[in-house]
Protein backbone atom coordinates (compact mmCIF):
# COMPACT_ATOMS: atom_id res chain seq x y z
CA UNK A 1 0.00 0.00 0.00
CA UNK A 2 1.28 3.43 -0.83
CA UNK A 3 1.80 5.66 2.16
CA UNK A 4 -0.29 8.81 2.52
CA UNK A 5 2.15 11.53 1.36
CA UNK A 6 1.00 13.78 4.21
CA UNK A 7 1.97 11.41 7.00
CA UNK A 8 5.38 10.22 8.18
CA UNK A 9 6.25 6.61 8.99
CA UNK A 10 4.69 7.00 12.46
CA UNK A 11 1.39 8.21 10.96
CA UNK A 12 2.02 11.79 12.10
CA UNK A 13 1.22 14.84 10.00
CA UNK A 14 4.30 15.93 8.08
CA UNK A 15 2.68 18.03 5.35
CA UNK A 16 -0.89 19.30 5.12
CA UNK A 17 -1.98 18.82 1.52
CA UNK A 18 -5.62 17.81 1.72
CA UNK A 19 -8.24 16.86 4.31
CA UNK A 20 -9.11 13.91 2.10
CA UNK A 21 -7.38 10.81 3.42
CA UNK A 22 -6.51 12.26 6.83
CA UNK A 23 -7.55 9.99 9.69
CA UNK A 24 -10.09 11.26 12.21
CA UNK A 25 -7.47 11.38 15.00
CA UNK A 26 -5.29 13.78 13.04
CA UNK A 27 -8.23 16.11 12.35
CA UNK A 28 -9.21 16.05 16.03
CA UNK A 29 -5.60 16.68 17.07
CA UNK A 30 -5.49 19.78 14.85
CA UNK A 31 -8.82 21.09 16.17
CA UNK A 32 -7.85 20.46 19.81
CA UNK A 33 -4.47 22.14 19.35
CA UNK A 34 -6.17 25.09 17.65
CA UNK A 35 -8.39 25.48 20.69
CA UNK A 36 -5.31 25.96 22.87
CA UNK A 37 -3.99 28.53 20.39
CA UNK A 38 -7.29 30.45 20.53
CA UNK A 39 -6.36 30.97 24.19
CA UNK A 40 -3.00 32.41 23.10
CA UNK A 41 -4.62 34.76 20.57
CA UNK A 42 -6.84 36.18 23.34
CA UNK A 43 -3.86 37.19 25.51
CA UNK A 44 -2.14 40.52 25.50
CA UNK A 45 1.11 38.87 24.33
CA UNK A 46 -0.20 36.82 21.41
CA UNK A 47 3.03 34.99 20.77
CA UNK A 48 4.61 31.70 21.78
CA UNK A 49 8.24 30.69 21.13
CA UNK A 50 7.59 27.34 19.36
CA UNK A 51 8.94 28.16 15.89
CA UNK A 52 11.76 30.50 16.95
CA UNK A 53 14.52 30.30 14.40
CA UNK A 54 12.32 28.65 11.75
CA UNK A 55 11.58 30.26 8.41
CA UNK A 56 8.16 30.13 6.81
CA UNK A 57 8.01 30.94 3.11
CA UNK A 58 4.62 32.06 1.83
CA UNK A 59 4.65 30.98 -1.83
CA UNK A 60 1.62 32.47 -3.49
CA UNK A 61 1.38 31.75 -7.20
CA UNK A 62 -2.17 33.07 -7.13
CA UNK A 63 -3.47 36.27 -5.54
CA UNK A 64 -4.83 36.10 -2.00
CA UNK A 65 -5.14 38.62 0.78
CA UNK A 66 -6.95 36.94 3.63
CA UNK A 67 -5.30 33.52 3.47
CA UNK A 68 -1.80 34.91 2.99
CA UNK A 69 -2.26 37.45 5.78
CA UNK A 70 -3.64 34.93 8.26
CA UNK A 71 -0.80 32.50 7.50
CA UNK A 72 1.64 35.36 8.05
CA UNK A 73 0.04 36.34 11.37
CA UNK A 74 -0.07 32.69 12.46
CA UNK A 75 3.63 32.16 11.66
CA UNK A 76 4.60 35.38 13.45
CA UNK A 77 2.58 34.40 16.53
CA UNK A 78 4.62 31.18 16.57
CA UNK A 79 7.79 33.37 16.49
CA UNK A 80 8.84 32.15 13.03
CA UNK A 81 10.42 34.42 10.44
CA UNK A 82 8.07 34.95 7.52
CA UNK A 83 9.07 35.63 3.95
CA UNK A 84 6.29 36.50 1.50
CA UNK A 85 6.88 35.75 -2.15
CA UNK A 86 4.48 36.95 -4.74
CA UNK A 87 5.59 34.56 -7.43
CA UNK A 88 3.16 35.81 -10.05
CA UNK A 89 5.42 38.86 -10.28
CA UNK A 90 8.69 37.05 -9.83
CA UNK A 91 10.93 34.24 -11.13
CA UNK A 92 8.21 32.19 -12.78
CA UNK A 93 7.58 35.00 -15.20
CA UNK A 94 11.25 34.71 -16.09
CA UNK A 95 10.78 31.01 -16.88
CA UNK A 96 12.03 29.31 -13.72
CA UNK A 97 10.33 25.97 -13.00
CA UNK A 98 8.36 25.38 -9.81
CA UNK A 99 10.89 22.90 -8.44
CA UNK A 100 13.81 25.22 -9.22
CA UNK A 101 12.09 27.99 -7.32
CA UNK A 102 11.57 25.69 -4.35
CA UNK A 103 15.16 24.38 -4.51
CA UNK A 104 16.44 27.95 -4.35
CA UNK A 105 14.30 28.75 -1.35
CA UNK A 106 15.42 25.53 0.27
CA UNK A 107 19.01 26.71 -0.19
CA UNK A 108 17.94 29.79 1.80
CA UNK A 109 17.08 27.39 4.68
CA UNK A 110 13.32 27.25 4.54
CA UNK A 111 11.47 25.12 7.08
CA UNK A 112 7.84 25.48 5.99
CA UNK A 113 6.45 26.25 2.55
CA UNK A 114 2.92 27.61 2.49
CA UNK A 115 1.83 27.14 -1.10
CA UNK A 116 -1.06 28.48 -3.13
CA UNK A 117 -1.12 27.50 -6.77
CA UNK A 118 -3.69 27.61 -9.55
CA UNK A 119 -2.92 24.08 -10.67
CA UNK A 120 -4.27 21.21 -8.63
CA UNK A 121 -1.54 19.03 -7.18
CA UNK A 122 1.29 21.60 -7.16
CA UNK A 123 1.77 21.29 -3.36
CA UNK A 124 2.05 17.49 -3.75
CA UNK A 125 4.80 17.93 -6.31
CA UNK A 126 6.68 20.21 -3.92
CA UNK A 127 6.12 17.88 -0.93
CA UNK A 128 7.61 14.97 -2.90
CA UNK A 129 10.75 16.96 -3.60
CA UNK A 130 11.56 18.75 -0.36
CA UNK A 131 14.12 17.65 2.23
CA UNK A 132 12.98 15.63 5.25
CA UNK A 133 13.04 18.62 7.62
CA UNK A 134 10.98 20.79 5.26
CA UNK A 135 7.20 20.86 5.43
CA UNK A 136 4.52 21.90 2.95
CA UNK A 137 1.15 23.39 3.81
CA UNK A 138 -1.38 23.68 1.01
CA UNK A 139 -3.03 27.12 1.01
CA UNK A 140 -5.27 26.26 -1.94
CA UNK A 141 -4.47 24.39 -5.16
CA UNK A 142 -6.66 24.85 -8.22
CA UNK A 143 -10.11 23.37 -7.73
CA UNK A 144 -8.67 20.58 -5.62
CA UNK A 145 -8.27 21.47 -1.95
CA UNK A 146 -7.99 24.25 0.60
CA UNK A 147 -7.41 22.22 3.75
CA UNK A 148 -6.78 25.02 6.26
CA UNK A 149 -10.02 26.72 5.21
CA UNK A 150 -11.83 23.40 5.60
CA UNK A 151 -10.25 22.96 9.04
CA UNK A 152 -11.21 26.43 10.20
CA UNK A 153 -14.76 25.77 9.02
CA UNK A 154 -14.74 22.54 11.02
CA UNK A 155 -13.34 24.40 14.01
CA UNK A 156 -16.07 27.05 13.74
CA UNK A 157 -18.80 24.40 13.51
CA UNK A 158 -17.42 22.55 16.54
CA UNK A 159 -17.11 25.82 18.47
CA UNK A 160 -20.79 26.70 18.00
CA UNK A 161 -22.33 23.23 17.82
CA UNK A 162 -19.94 21.26 20.09
CA UNK A 163 -19.82 18.16 17.92
CA UNK A 164 -20.67 16.79 14.45
CA UNK A 165 -22.65 13.60 14.80
CA UNK A 166 -26.12 15.15 14.93
CA UNK A 167 -25.66 17.95 12.42
CA UNK A 168 -27.21 18.74 9.08
CA UNK A 169 -24.87 20.95 7.09
CA UNK A 170 -25.73 22.66 3.81
CA UNK A 171 -23.09 24.01 1.43
CA UNK A 172 -24.63 26.44 -1.04
CA UNK A 173 -23.63 27.92 -4.37
CA UNK A 174 -20.72 27.39 -6.70
CA UNK A 175 -19.59 23.92 -5.62
CA UNK A 176 -18.01 23.22 -9.01
CA UNK A 177 -15.20 25.75 -8.68
CA UNK A 178 -14.86 25.49 -4.91
CA UNK A 179 -11.86 23.83 -3.32
CA UNK A 180 -13.31 24.99 0.01
CA UNK A 181 -16.45 22.87 -0.50
CA UNK A 182 -14.43 19.78 -1.35
CA UNK A 183 -12.19 20.07 1.72
CA UNK A 184 -15.12 20.73 4.03
CA UNK A 185 -17.15 17.78 2.70
CA UNK A 186 -14.24 15.39 3.35
CA UNK A 187 -13.74 16.79 6.84
CA UNK A 188 -17.42 16.60 7.76
CA UNK A 189 -17.81 13.02 6.59
CA UNK A 190 -14.60 11.95 8.38
CA UNK A 191 -15.83 13.53 11.62
CA UNK A 192 -19.21 11.82 11.36
CA UNK A 193 -21.68 14.51 10.24
CA UNK A 194 -24.73 12.44 9.28
CA UNK A 195 -26.10 14.74 6.59
CA UNK A 196 -24.13 17.01 4.28
CA UNK A 197 -26.14 18.72 1.56
CA UNK A 198 -24.95 20.63 -1.44
CA UNK A 199 -27.33 23.17 -2.94
CA UNK A 200 -26.83 24.81 -6.31
CA UNK A 201 -27.79 24.87 -9.96
CA UNK A 202 -26.83 21.83 -12.03
CA UNK A 203 -24.26 23.90 -13.91
CA UNK A 204 -22.36 24.72 -10.70
CA UNK A 205 -22.28 21.22 -9.24
CA UNK A 206 -19.48 18.84 -10.24
CA UNK A 207 -20.77 15.72 -11.96
CA UNK A 208 -20.81 12.74 -9.62
CA UNK A 209 -20.71 14.94 -6.50
CA UNK A 210 -23.01 12.40 -4.76
CA UNK A 211 -20.06 10.02 -4.60
CA UNK A 212 -18.56 12.27 -1.89
CA UNK A 213 -21.48 11.24 0.35
CA UNK A 214 -23.66 14.34 0.02
CA UNK A 215 -27.32 14.93 -0.80
CA UNK A 216 -27.92 17.16 -3.79
CA UNK A 217 -30.60 19.86 -3.87
CA UNK A 218 -31.38 22.26 -6.69
CA UNK A 219 -34.17 23.96 -4.75
CA UNK A 220 -32.60 26.07 -1.99
CA UNK A 221 -35.77 26.19 0.12
CA UNK A 222 -35.98 22.41 0.26
CA UNK A 223 -32.24 22.12 0.91
CA UNK A 224 -32.15 24.56 3.82
CA UNK A 225 -34.98 22.93 5.73
CA UNK A 226 -33.89 22.12 9.32
CA UNK A 227 -30.20 22.77 8.71
CA UNK A 228 -27.90 23.44 11.66
CA UNK A 229 -25.11 24.95 9.59
CA UNK A 230 -25.25 26.88 6.30
CA UNK A 231 -22.03 27.46 4.40
CA UNK A 232 -22.41 30.02 1.62
CA UNK A 233 -19.78 29.96 -1.11
CA UNK A 234 -18.61 32.87 -3.16
CA UNK A 235 -19.76 33.04 -6.75
CA UNK A 236 -16.34 32.81 -8.36
CA UNK A 237 -16.67 35.11 -11.34
CA UNK A 238 -12.98 34.90 -12.17
CA UNK A 239 -13.23 31.14 -12.58
CA UNK A 240 -16.21 31.16 -14.88
CA UNK A 241 -15.13 31.01 -18.46
CA UNK A 242 -18.39 29.82 -20.03
CA UNK A 243 -21.94 30.97 -19.55
CA UNK A 244 -22.87 28.85 -16.58
CA UNK A 245 -25.27 31.43 -15.24
CA UNK A 246 -27.72 33.90 -16.74
CA UNK A 247 -26.80 36.75 -14.34
CA UNK A 248 -25.81 37.56 -10.78
CA UNK A 249 -29.32 38.93 -10.11
CA UNK A 250 -30.87 35.70 -11.32
CA UNK A 251 -28.46 33.72 -9.10
CA UNK A 252 -29.38 35.79 -6.04
CA UNK A 253 -33.07 35.18 -6.69
CA UNK A 254 -32.62 31.40 -6.56
CA UNK A 255 -29.53 30.80 -4.43
CA UNK A 256 -28.85 33.99 -2.51
CA UNK A 257 -29.30 33.63 1.25
CA UNK A 258 -32.01 36.01 2.46
CA UNK A 259 -33.69 36.27 5.84
CA UNK A 260 -36.77 34.50 4.46
CA UNK A 261 -34.77 31.52 3.23
CA UNK A 262 -32.70 31.42 6.42
CA UNK A 263 -35.92 31.09 8.46
CA UNK A 264 -36.38 27.60 6.96
CA UNK A 265 -33.27 26.37 8.75
CA UNK A 266 -33.20 25.60 12.48
CA UNK A 267 -33.72 28.69 14.69
CA UNK A 268 -30.16 28.43 16.04
CA UNK A 269 -28.54 27.78 12.66
CA UNK A 270 -25.17 29.42 11.97
CA UNK A 271 -24.25 31.03 8.66
CA UNK A 272 -20.66 30.76 7.42
CA UNK A 273 -18.83 32.17 4.42
CA UNK A 274 -15.16 31.69 3.52
CA UNK A 275 -14.93 35.23 2.10
CA UNK A 276 -14.59 37.43 0.24
CA UNK A 277 -18.36 37.96 0.17
CA UNK A 278 -20.36 39.27 -2.74
CA UNK A 279 -23.20 41.01 -0.94
CA UNK A 280 -26.40 40.83 -2.93
CA UNK A 281 -25.09 37.95 -5.06
CA UNK A 282 -24.81 34.93 -2.78
CA UNK A 283 -25.75 36.55 0.52
CA UNK A 284 -28.02 39.39 1.59
CA UNK A 285 -26.46 42.07 3.80
CA UNK A 286 -29.09 41.63 6.51
CA UNK A 287 -27.99 37.99 6.84
CA UNK A 288 -24.26 38.66 6.50
CA UNK A 289 -24.46 41.20 9.34
CA UNK A 290 -27.20 39.39 11.26
CA UNK A 291 -27.16 37.36 14.47
CA UNK A 292 -26.75 33.97 12.74
CA UNK A 293 -23.57 34.97 10.87
CA UNK A 294 -20.25 33.71 12.27
CA UNK A 295 -18.23 34.93 9.31
CA UNK A 296 -15.81 37.16 11.23
CA UNK A 297 -15.17 34.63 14.02
CA UNK A 298 -14.18 32.25 11.18
CA UNK A 299 -11.36 34.61 10.29
CA UNK A 300 -10.15 34.80 13.90
CA UNK A 301 -10.30 31.03 14.35
CA UNK A 302 -8.42 30.66 11.04
CA UNK A 303 -5.30 32.12 12.66
CA UNK A 304 -5.38 29.61 15.54
CA UNK A 305 -6.01 26.73 13.13
CA UNK A 306 -3.02 27.74 10.99
CA UNK A 307 -0.86 28.05 14.11
CA UNK A 308 -1.91 24.51 15.03
CA UNK A 309 -1.15 23.12 11.57
CA UNK A 310 2.28 24.75 11.30
CA UNK A 311 3.35 23.80 14.81
CA UNK A 312 2.24 20.20 14.34
CA UNK A 313 3.92 19.64 10.95
CA UNK A 314 7.14 21.42 11.92
CA UNK A 315 7.48 19.21 14.99
CA UNK A 316 7.08 15.92 13.08
Amino acid at each position, binding site marked *: MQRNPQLNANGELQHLLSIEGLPREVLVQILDTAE*SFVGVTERE*VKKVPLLRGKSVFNLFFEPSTRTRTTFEIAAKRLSADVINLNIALSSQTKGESLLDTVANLSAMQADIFVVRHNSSGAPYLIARNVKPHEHVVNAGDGRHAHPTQGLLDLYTIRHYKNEFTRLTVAIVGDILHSRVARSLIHGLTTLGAPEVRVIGPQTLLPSGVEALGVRVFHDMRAGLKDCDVIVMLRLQNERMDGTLLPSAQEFFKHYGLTGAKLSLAKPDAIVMHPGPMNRGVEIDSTVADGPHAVILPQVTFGIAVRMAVMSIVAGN
Partner: protein
Amino acid sequence: MKLPEAEQLCAQLVGELKARIGPQTAMIGLYTGGAWLAERLHAMLRLPEPLGLMDIAFYRDDYHARGLHHDPKRTKIPFDISGRDLLLVDDVLYTGRTVRAAMNELFDYGRPASISLVVLADRGGRQLPICAQHCGARVEVPSGMRLRLKRDAGDRLTLALEPERAA
Protein backbone atom coordinates in the same frame (compact mmCIF):
# COMPACT_ATOMS: atom_id res chain seq x y z
CA MET B 1 9.68 0.59 47.57
CA LYS B 2 7.20 2.51 49.66
CA LEU B 3 6.00 5.84 48.32
CA PRO B 4 4.67 8.55 50.63
CA GLU B 5 0.90 9.02 50.91
CA ALA B 6 -0.12 11.83 48.58
CA GLU B 7 -3.15 12.77 50.66
CA GLN B 8 -0.96 13.19 53.73
CA LEU B 9 1.50 15.32 51.82
CA CYS B 10 -1.39 17.53 50.67
CA ALA B 11 -2.49 18.14 54.24
CA GLN B 12 1.10 18.90 55.21
CA LEU B 13 1.46 21.41 52.33
CA VAL B 14 -1.79 23.13 53.30
CA GLY B 15 -0.50 23.58 56.85
CA GLU B 16 2.73 25.03 55.52
CA LEU B 17 1.08 27.34 52.97
CA LYS B 18 -1.57 28.78 55.32
CA ALA B 19 1.01 31.03 56.94
CA ARG B 20 2.06 32.30 53.51
CA ILE B 21 -1.33 33.46 52.23
CA GLY B 22 -1.55 37.22 51.77
CA PRO B 23 -3.89 39.62 49.97
CA GLN B 24 -2.02 39.20 46.64
CA THR B 25 -1.69 35.41 46.75
CA ALA B 26 -3.04 33.45 43.77
CA MET B 27 -2.48 29.87 42.61
CA ILE B 28 -1.68 28.33 39.24
CA GLY B 29 -1.51 24.57 38.60
CA LEU B 30 0.36 22.84 35.78
CA TYR B 31 -1.47 20.20 33.76
CA THR B 32 -2.08 17.39 34.45
CA GLY B 33 -0.90 16.23 37.88
CA GLY B 34 -0.12 19.74 39.10
CA ALA B 35 -3.62 20.87 38.17
CA TRP B 36 -5.16 18.09 40.31
CA LEU B 37 -2.94 18.99 43.24
CA ALA B 38 -3.67 22.71 42.78
CA GLU B 39 -7.44 22.09 42.70
CA ARG B 40 -7.11 20.30 46.01
CA LEU B 41 -4.85 22.89 47.68
CA HIS B 42 -6.89 25.78 46.30
CA ALA B 43 -10.09 24.38 47.83
CA MET B 44 -8.48 23.54 51.18
CA LEU B 45 -6.85 26.97 51.48
CA ARG B 46 -10.08 28.74 50.37
CA LEU B 47 -8.19 31.19 48.20
CA PRO B 48 -10.43 34.04 47.03
CA GLU B 49 -9.03 34.28 43.48
CA PRO B 50 -10.15 31.53 41.06
CA LEU B 51 -7.52 28.91 40.26
CA GLY B 52 -5.36 29.34 37.15
CA LEU B 53 -4.44 26.29 35.03
CA MET B 54 -1.53 26.13 32.63
CA ASP B 55 -0.37 23.79 29.87
CA ILE B 56 3.23 24.54 28.95
CA ALA B 57 3.17 22.60 25.63
CA PHE B 58 3.91 25.76 23.60
CA TYR B 59 6.94 26.62 25.77
CA ARG B 60 8.66 23.25 26.06
CA ASP B 61 12.35 23.12 25.19
CA ASP B 62 12.15 19.68 23.56
CA TYR B 63 9.72 20.68 20.78
CA HIS B 64 12.45 20.51 18.15
CA ALA B 65 13.36 16.98 19.19
CA ARG B 66 9.95 15.57 20.03
CA GLY B 67 7.35 17.69 18.25
CA LEU B 68 4.21 19.14 19.72
CA HIS B 69 2.58 17.42 22.67
CA HIS B 70 -0.48 15.61 21.37
CA ASP B 71 -3.34 17.03 23.36
CA PRO B 72 -2.38 20.43 24.73
CA LYS B 73 -4.94 21.84 27.14
CA ARG B 74 -5.92 25.45 27.00
CA THR B 75 -4.14 27.66 29.54
CA LYS B 76 -6.70 29.58 31.59
CA ILE B 77 -5.58 32.28 33.99
CA PRO B 78 -8.77 34.05 35.08
CA PHE B 79 -7.04 36.95 36.89
CA ASP B 80 -4.37 39.55 36.16
CA ILE B 81 -1.09 38.09 37.43
CA SER B 82 0.70 41.47 37.59
CA GLY B 83 1.74 42.29 41.13
CA ARG B 84 0.57 38.92 42.47
CA ASP B 85 2.39 36.53 44.76
CA LEU B 86 1.95 33.37 42.74
CA LEU B 87 2.00 29.83 44.06
CA LEU B 88 3.00 27.70 41.07
CA VAL B 89 1.93 24.11 41.69
CA ASP B 90 3.24 20.91 40.10
CA ASP B 91 3.07 17.30 41.22
CA VAL B 92 6.70 16.16 40.77
CA LEU B 93 9.85 18.28 40.48
CA TYR B 94 12.57 16.60 38.43
CA THR B 95 14.81 18.28 35.82
CA GLY B 96 13.28 21.75 36.35
CA ARG B 97 12.55 22.18 32.64
CA THR B 98 8.77 22.23 33.08
CA VAL B 99 9.08 24.97 35.70
CA ARG B 100 11.36 26.99 33.41
CA ALA B 101 8.80 26.71 30.61
CA ALA B 102 5.98 27.65 33.00
CA MET B 103 7.81 30.79 34.13
CA ASN B 104 8.40 31.80 30.51
CA GLU B 105 4.71 31.39 29.77
CA LEU B 106 3.70 33.29 32.92
CA PHE B 107 5.70 36.34 31.90
CA ASP B 108 3.66 36.50 28.68
CA TYR B 109 0.67 37.15 30.95
CA GLY B 110 2.23 39.87 33.08
CA ARG B 111 4.80 40.62 35.79
CA PRO B 112 4.06 38.86 39.05
CA ALA B 113 5.52 40.27 42.30
CA SER B 114 6.86 36.81 43.18
CA ILE B 115 6.58 33.15 42.22
CA SER B 116 6.95 30.31 44.72
CA LEU B 117 7.11 26.73 43.61
CA VAL B 118 4.92 24.17 45.40
CA VAL B 119 5.42 20.46 44.65
CA LEU B 120 4.16 17.26 46.17
CA ALA B 121 7.42 15.40 45.57
CA ASP B 122 11.00 16.26 44.62
CA ARG B 123 12.85 13.39 42.95
CA GLY B 124 16.17 15.26 42.47
CA GLY B 125 17.98 15.14 39.10
CA ARG B 126 17.83 18.87 38.45
CA GLN B 127 19.27 20.14 35.15
CA LEU B 128 18.47 23.80 35.82
CA PRO B 129 19.01 26.07 38.84
CA ILE B 130 15.47 25.67 40.18
CA CYS B 131 14.25 24.63 43.61
CA ALA B 132 10.88 24.28 45.34
CA GLN B 133 9.95 26.61 48.18
CA HIS B 134 7.32 24.15 49.40
CA CYS B 135 7.92 20.44 48.95
CA GLY B 136 5.86 17.59 50.40
CA ALA B 137 8.60 14.95 50.32
CA ARG B 138 11.86 13.94 48.71
CA VAL B 139 11.48 10.68 46.86
CA GLU B 140 14.20 8.51 45.36
CA VAL B 141 13.19 7.16 42.00
CA PRO B 142 15.08 4.28 40.33
CA SER B 143 16.48 5.19 36.91
CA GLY B 144 14.23 4.37 33.99
CA MET B 145 11.18 5.02 36.17
CA ARG B 146 8.79 7.93 36.33
CA LEU B 147 7.03 9.27 39.41
CA ARG B 148 3.47 10.36 38.70
CA LEU B 149 0.47 11.65 40.56
CA LYS B 150 -2.77 9.77 39.92
CA ARG B 151 -6.34 10.64 40.71
CA ASP B 152 -8.98 7.97 41.03
CA ALA B 153 -12.74 8.19 40.43
CA GLY B 154 -13.28 9.28 44.05
CA ASP B 155 -10.77 12.18 43.59
CA ARG B 156 -8.22 10.41 45.80
CA LEU B 157 -4.63 11.36 45.00
CA THR B 158 -1.82 8.78 45.02
CA LEU B 159 1.80 8.72 43.90
CA ALA B 160 2.84 5.92 41.57
CA LEU B 161 5.97 4.67 39.85
CA GLU B 162 5.81 3.59 36.24
CA PRO B 163 8.35 2.85 33.49
CA GLU B 164 9.46 5.94 31.56
CA ARG B 165 7.87 6.21 28.13
CA ALA B 166 10.24 5.49 25.29
CA ALA B 167 11.29 8.81 23.74
